[in-house]
């Protein structure tokens, strides 16, 4: 079960849909992925401070990348949601870079550049297992801890603004985040 009480088996069908896109350019599978993930990527972008139009653009570009890169998706080393998350995140970094540099290049042009130095595959557990482990660890965090981690992941806000939003002093935000991360690390360690 995850933090919201959904069953953890949710993850595997998305993997199969991505594989269907990779193997047989299955458009129905793609549509199903789009219906689920595009609106969530849009929420992610809106919370990161994007306006409606660019949030939708990033959501579309993310899904287009899912289509194009489906063959690179390795279900044994990445979970579908985590994989799509990293695509969206990289596009977001890319979009911010274009904003800063005033680059005329289109969104998506520089995805290759933004890839981080990905973990060696052998350092990963099987993906589904990893995702279940992460969900199980997150389920043990308090709502407040989930909230502070969520804010730090999804809202483009300085800690000072988070403090204002949560109506607590800045130092409290920093220590809450530190404690939440430390707890998460311990839980993840215990579960591996």
């Amino acid at each position, binding site marked *: 079960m995850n933090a919201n009480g959904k069953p953890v088996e949710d993850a595997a069908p998305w993997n199969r849909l991505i594989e269907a896109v990779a193997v047989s350019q299955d458009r129905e599978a793609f549509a199903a992925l789009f219906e689920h993930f*595009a609106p969530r990527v849009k929420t992610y972008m809106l919370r990161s401070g994007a306006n409606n139009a660019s949030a939708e653009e990033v959501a579309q570009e993310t899904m*287009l990348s899912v289509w194009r890169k489906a063959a690179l998706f390795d279900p044994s080393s990445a979970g579908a949601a985590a994989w799509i*998350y990293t695509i969206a995140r990289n596009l977001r970094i890319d979009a911010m870079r274009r904003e800063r540099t005033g680059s005329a290049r289109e969104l998506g042009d520089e995805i*290759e550049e933004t890839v981080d*130095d990905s973990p060696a595959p052998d*350092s*990963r557990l099987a993906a589904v297992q990893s995702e279940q482990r992460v969900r199980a660890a997150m389920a043990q965090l308090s709502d407040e801890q989930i909230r502070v981690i969520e804010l*730090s*992941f999804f809202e483009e806000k300085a800690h000072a603004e988070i403090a204002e939003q949560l109506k607590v002093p800045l130092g409290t935000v920093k220590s809450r985040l*530190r404690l939440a991360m430390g707890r998460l690390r311990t839980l993840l360690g215990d579960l591996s």
Partner: protein
Amino acid sequence: MTIHHHPSDVMLAAFAAGTLDPGERMAIATHLSTCARCRAFVDDMEYVGGVMLDDLPPAAMPAGSLAEVMERLDEPASRTIQVAPSSDLDDVPGLPDLVRRCRAGDWKWIAPGVHVRPIIVPEDSPTRVFLLKAAPGTRVMQHSHTDLEMTCVLTGAYTHDGTRYGPGDFDIGEEDDDHKPLVEQGEDCICLVAMRGDIRLSGLLGQLMQPFVRM
């Protein structure tokens, strides 16, 4: 290589969340390129990102949005511009692609035994990145006016407050730190440093120069 000093969990999570500025990102990527332990944690944090993405409330996409994308599926895939890595940094070991793609200036002497070499961050970044090379036995007295300073050791080693930092180690200095690292005997100590603060580059060189003292 045994790595003893790592970035904080919060910093690693911020790397996974994509919320670091470009200079900070380079420093963390440099550490990750040699540290399997931190890579595994970043990996987990990407799963956390995936789980949270999956749990976000959906925001409706406009009607026709899926059809629009469907129409583009057969477009030739490669609008992607492959940016060839610059070869400026080929002679420096231990740098990740993210850094190796950058242009770099020349080594500049700033004090006896100490040279710096700016790395050109390809976009506005509140954090500046440079390489610092110090000869064995140099005591680097760095009084810094910066908010934050991240140091990744690439070669050689130094001792700082009785703690040794060798290749792969990550050292974080904050404003009130009184840095007086001593470079170990043996080889040159080369570090990648990401520094955030109010110092302009010319000012930085000037400021760095003064406090560096050779023992």
